């Protein structure tokens, strides 16, 4: 797993080139593992009609990948595109249940370290190569090969030792230690199985001309413009989690890269594209009011957009100051005013659709300025200076929050100002500094900041380990930016990742979420969501558990 100050996460709502030129570097996000879909409440009422094959769908997305080799690139948009081109060993349902796909069945050894998969017969890649055990081995070996310099897939296989091809239809994947998230990871598009013949090619070709066995084949990619996929008519190996068998309904999908919010929304309302993502929150009322359009949304699982606090230096090394900050923010009012109710406030570091979310935290740490003031008084920040900020021994209570300028999107800058204003009300001088991404990364590596704000899109609570375990330091490829060494969290999170006991995992993740709030190690702010607008013609559009869109069951209703 990688931190992304990024070139691409979606929840990042990243914007490869935002209207402001440089957004190439979005942040910290995201990267999803494909799971089953969900969010039935908002899914269009398509169930009644009978799907019709035919027609091409155009999807305008805010972000453009730089490379679509799933084994290399970590960005969300790469996952969304590659999901159509590549099949995985397993598929996942809405509830995160694992179902067969290219593997028809599997068993796990008692020690949790060996997974034996029986592979499907009769699957062929787009280049005509037959799918077999060697293809799985080649794909996994490619992901972990240092030569690939994988920015994400290798992390999904972090405990990978080797793949043994027992016979063409049977393989064993051997891990160095048990990994409870292994099947989840294997179902991700980033570990989609590539044609072994294709993997022989150069990095350039893998990046630009992917070859899988999926329901859609790669046609073309014109940089800065669009990426075109066509239906694979030979497709007969749909995932068990899908609604139908056989080839996809759509003749093709065009991903159009429209980073400008106004242009993207206008392209949808004027019927020039069928689907868009990242609908600006301010346009959602207009979208809902438009009779020929539909609005779909799904909360993203993983780490909610949160402030991670640097406990390693003054003043946030004092738990009372951290708690004061946590309780000083009037989050309900802030989130409502910035996002018009389209994003929810967060109660835990994990968002509600994450496997392992602890619902019991909801409502437990309401806004309480009086308490915040009391805590700060107790901590000795009792004096006030001329600007009304608290001081102790002549030093002002200053907290520095840094971010990369390109990461300020989705109204996050406005949220930051709100947090800043609320903090000021209890006498905290919270400085929100938006800087060049290079400077920002320098500050991160030097630990010269008190607050880091960001999110990660991930299917389950294991993201907590990435963000807090002591062996996940930033120079080790982890997300523990401030080098936190907390034995309680280490025990809870490491045990959760290796145990084969589902109940232990759930409990540990819940305890860890409680612990983070109790000790105010972070301030959860908002739950990320995928806000999608689509024409009424578009039916069977689904969100995966990751909140990414999937197009296999999608069809165009010619009567609309």
């Amino acid at each position: 797993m990688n931190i992304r100050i990024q070139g691409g996460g979606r929840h990042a709502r990243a914007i490869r080139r935002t209207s402001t030129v440089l957004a190439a570097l979005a942040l910290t996000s995201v990267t999803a593992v494909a799971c089953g879909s969900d969010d039935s409440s908002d899914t269009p009422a398509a169930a009644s009609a009978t799907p019709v094959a035919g027609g091409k769908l155009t999807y305008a997305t805010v972000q453009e990948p730089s490379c679509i080799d799933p084994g290399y690139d970590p960005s969300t948009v790469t996952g969304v595109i590659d999901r159509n081109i590549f099949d995985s060993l397993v598929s996942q349902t809405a509830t995160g249940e694992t179902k067969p796909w290219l593997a028809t069945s599997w068993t796990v050894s008692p020690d949790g370290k060996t997974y034996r998969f029986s592979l499907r017969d009769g699957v062929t890649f787009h280049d005509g190569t037959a799918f077999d055990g060697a293809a799985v081995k080649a794909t996994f070996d490619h992901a972990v090969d240092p030569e690939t310099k994988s920015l994400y897939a290798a992390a999904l296989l972090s405990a990978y030792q080797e793949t043994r091809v027992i016979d063409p239809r049977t393989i064993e994947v051997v891990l160095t230690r048990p990994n409870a998230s292994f099947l989840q990871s294997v179902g991700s598009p980033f570990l989609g199985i590539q044609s072994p013949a294709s993997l022989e090619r150069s990095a350039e070709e893998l990046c630009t001309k992917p070859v899988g066995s999926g329901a859609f084949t790669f046609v073309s990619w014109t940089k800065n413009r669009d990426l075109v996929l066509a239906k694979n008519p030979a497709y007969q190996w749909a995932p068990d989690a899908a609604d139908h068998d056989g080839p996809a309904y759509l003749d093709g999908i065009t991903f159009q890269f429209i980073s400008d919010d106004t242009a993207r929304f206008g392209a949808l309302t004027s019927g020039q594209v069928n689907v868009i993502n990242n609908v600006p929150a301010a346009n959602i009322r207009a979208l809902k009011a438009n009779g020929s359009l539909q609005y779909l949304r799904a909360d993203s699982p993983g780490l909610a957009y949160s402030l991670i606090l640097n406990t390693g230096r003054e003043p946030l090394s004092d738990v009372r100051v951290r708690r004061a900050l946590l309780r000083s923010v009037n989050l309900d009012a802030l989130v409502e005013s910035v996002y018009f109710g389209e994003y929810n406030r967060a109660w835990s570091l994990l968002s509600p659709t994450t496997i392992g979310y602890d619902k019991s935290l909801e409502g437990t740490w309401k806004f309480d300025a009086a308490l915040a003031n009391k805590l700060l008084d107790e901590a000795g920040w009792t004096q006030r200076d001329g600007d009304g900020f608290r001081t102790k021994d002549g030093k002002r209570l200053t907290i520095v929050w840094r971010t990369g300028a390109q990461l300020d999107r989705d109204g996050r800058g406005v949220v930051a100002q709100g947090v800043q204003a609320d903090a000021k009300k209890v006498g905290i001088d919270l400085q929100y500094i938006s800087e060049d991404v290079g400077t920002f990364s320098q500050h991160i590596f030097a630990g010269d900041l008190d607050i880091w704000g960001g999110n990660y899109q991930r299917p389950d609570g294991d993201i907590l380990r990435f963000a807090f375990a002591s062996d996940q330091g930033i120079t080790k490829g982890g997300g523990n930016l401030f080098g936190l060494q907390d034995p309680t969290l280490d025990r809870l999170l490491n045990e959760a990742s290796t145990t084969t006991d589902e109940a232990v995992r759930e409990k540990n993740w819940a305890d860890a979420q409680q612990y983070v709030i109790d000790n105010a190690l972070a301030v959860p702010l908002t739950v990320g969501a995928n806000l999608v607008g689509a024409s009424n013609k578009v039916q069977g559009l689904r969100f995966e558990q990751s909140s990414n869109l999937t197009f296999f069951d999608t069809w165009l209703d010619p009567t609309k």
Partner: protein
Amino acid sequence: MRSTTWWLARRLALAVLVVVGAATVAFGALQLVPGDPVHVMMGGAAPSEEVYERTRHELGYDQPLPVRYGEFLGQLLRGDLGQSYQLHQPVADVIGSQLWPTVQLALAAFGLAFVVAAALAVTTAGRRSGWRRVASAAELLMISTPGFWVGVLLLTFFSFRLHLFPVAGGDSLAGLVLPAATLAIGLIGVFAQVMREGLERALEQPFVLSARARGTGETAVRLRHALRHALIPMVTLSGWIVGSLLGGAVLIETIFSREGLGRITATAIAGRDLPLVTGVAVVAATIFALLNIAVDLLYRVIDPRMKEVVR
């Protein structure tokens, strides 16, 4: 003739210097930008130490700066622009694929702006009428209106409302209209003001008086005699403007989701994609230098007196 050949050879040699200079400045500027280029390039990701070191080595960042600069220059002189870090493609291919849309947009915008500005200037120059004032005010407005806003307005009206042109038209002709118009609007004001001033100055010259004395009509005086003089400053301006347009128009390309060098460059700078940034700098500088030679040649065509002066 010999003098022209000699002049051209000297100018071409100078052009090579300009290109190497531009490449050096681009190379140097990216060294000065804060932040570890390897981290930024990897999307600021925190890669494992192994991946980090390997990437650093492959990109040559473990070498001292003079060595890297030397290698860079050597590559450049061999005509090799290198491989883009982030796109994993040869820089020449990336630029090649984005160059034509950029040229299309630049020339279309320039042509449009030139024609409209010439019409404005010829009809309003030297006339103390209300029209001149109206035209002049409109030009100022066009100069000072931000391009992205014009672009959004044009899109809203002509694409979203009237459905006349696509939001993102790729390289089709219909897709070129709005971006070209957006870019042109910013240029028309400048062009018209420069041409009007040139015209007005020319119209005060004795040769205009003698032309009028011969009974030449006002329009003919303007088009046949004065316009030629007014074009000299325009030509100077054109060399510069077309040159910078060919470097890409980031905002316009972004709003209209067009391919083009501008967006490629912006992304490359943000991602510290050194080979791509220097590659674009080299290409832009080359075009710029060649255009300026062409402009100087044009002077000689428009104004024969220049042959004697420019050497």
